[in-house]
């Protein structure tokens, strides 16, 4: 952000976000299925299954322009922070939050970084599997970030989002997307119960997300 003036910066992000949403619609005809939650300006953490680099584009294409402006995807700093170009794409164009999964210095603590974004009143898109799922399993086990964030900021809604078909649109190692119809199913908010253990909560959130898959037999 240092070299760009703030105005150019906001313009760049708006153009990128409108452009990517339009592209997502042209390729996948993406549409949201609100099943248990509704579009809202409330502060939220959208947590979704992760199979492709296009996942968060699809998810944010389902949000309104206003929500999109304050919603940031959490991305891996090891990958997106590697070169200046990647950093520019991830941070300046897509306004994502970069975190390092292997961190040493206290200021790199992923939870602290994400909490600081939440404390600005912004929302997050989180992929709790921690990495793109390249296995035959429909959904990998969740890492604890979701639990830590929710216990630290219980007022933020956790919305499970199942992203359909993206693994077929853009399979592992491919750059060109195949046009296929995609839906994003937004489920009912999940919250950590009183005294609920980390593991129990993560397993419950995992099961809730998995249950949103509208066509389980298709995911192969």
């Amino acid at each position: 952000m240092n070299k760009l003036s703030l105005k150019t910066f906001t313009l760049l992000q708006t153009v990128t976000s409108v452009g990517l949403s339009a592209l997502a619609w042209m390729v996948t005809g993406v549409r949201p299925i609100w099943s248990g939650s509704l579009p809202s300006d409330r502060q939220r953490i959208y947590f979704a299954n992760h199979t492709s680099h296009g996942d968060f584009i699809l998810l944010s294409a389902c949000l309104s322009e206003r929500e999109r402006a304050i919603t940031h995807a959490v991305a891996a700093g090891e990958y997106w922070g590697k070169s200046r170009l990647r950093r520019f794409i991830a941070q300046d164009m897509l306004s994502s939050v970069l975190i390092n999964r292997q961190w040493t210095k206290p200021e790199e603590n992923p939870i602290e970084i994400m909490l600081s974004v939440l404390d600005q009143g912004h929302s997050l898109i989180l992929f709790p599997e921690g990495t793109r799922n390249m296995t035959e399993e429909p959904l990998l086990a969740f890492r604890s970030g979701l639990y830590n964030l929710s216990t630290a900021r219980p007022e933020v809604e956790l919305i499970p989002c199942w992203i359909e078909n993206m693994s077929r649109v853009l399979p592992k190692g491919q750059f060109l997307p195949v046009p296929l119809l995609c839906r994003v199913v937004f489920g009912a908010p999940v919250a950590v119960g009183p005294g609920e253990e980390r593991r129990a909560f993560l397993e419950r959130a995992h099961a809730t997300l998995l249950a949103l898959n509208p066509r389980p037999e298709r995911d192969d």
Partner: protein
Amino acid sequence: MRHEISILIIGLLAVLTTASVVATILSARAPKPLSSTLVNLTQRINAWWVMVALMTVAFFFGRYGMTILFALISFAALREFVTLTHTRRSDHWVLLGMFGIIIPFQYWLVWTAWYGLFVIFIPVYCFLLMPAITALHGDTERFLERIAAQQWAVMISVYCVSHVPALLTLNVPGFEGRTLLLIAFLIIVVQGSDVLQYIFGKLFGKHRFSPNVSPSKTWEGLIGGLVSASLLGALLSFVTPFSPLQAAAVAFVACSMGFLGGLVASAIKRDQGVKDWGHLIEGHGGMMDRTDSLVFAAPVFFHIVRYFWTV
């Protein structure tokens, strides 16, 4: 040709206006909340306004407009079709080729009126090379099912649909420069038949035509729709090279094929466990839900005209 086009447009506007008025009156008089049938009816009519507007715009751009419009329709239909089929990672290049090569090339053949290659490019070259590429990838899991679905997808969504703009390449003596009207005739008659079957079915439908395949298709709807659509064809003979009787016969064949197309599409949807192909057109479903009848009618109509009316 301008004269005929004006009449068609005025006629369509009159029909749509009547439909909207009737739907508004029905909705005003019906108990609230409105039944899903009435809500859907209004959605369908509104979507028809948009579709007719889009077709009219494309019509005024002539050969460009038609070729581009139907290439886009193929894209939307193919996307819906492939989404329903079983695909695997190893199919990626074949699938990309279907969208990136087969659609543009087939419509380029339409554009250049290269009839010889237009009719065989997909059924010969694509049908042989697509499974070959799949086999070269070495993934034999559900192989036959995958290649069959891919071939049927391009057959339906690309090959059949491309026969609509291909009507512009036909050389009918005494009808030069007016082939756009053949497209108008085909679309109005076939889509009109769908609408008429829907109306007759809703009003008089009692006996299911094929309960296993499509619960909404009835004998009353089919017969009423086909007869009235044939009459509509005769009425529209002034925009065609056909006599009124010929126009009725051609319309009857096209609409019968259209009915079968709808039946086949319903069977595929039922097999895949979905109600609609997609959600592109409010109230109607996806692109394939609206074009399933045209898809079956277009090639047959094309070859009837080509065989009997061209030199």
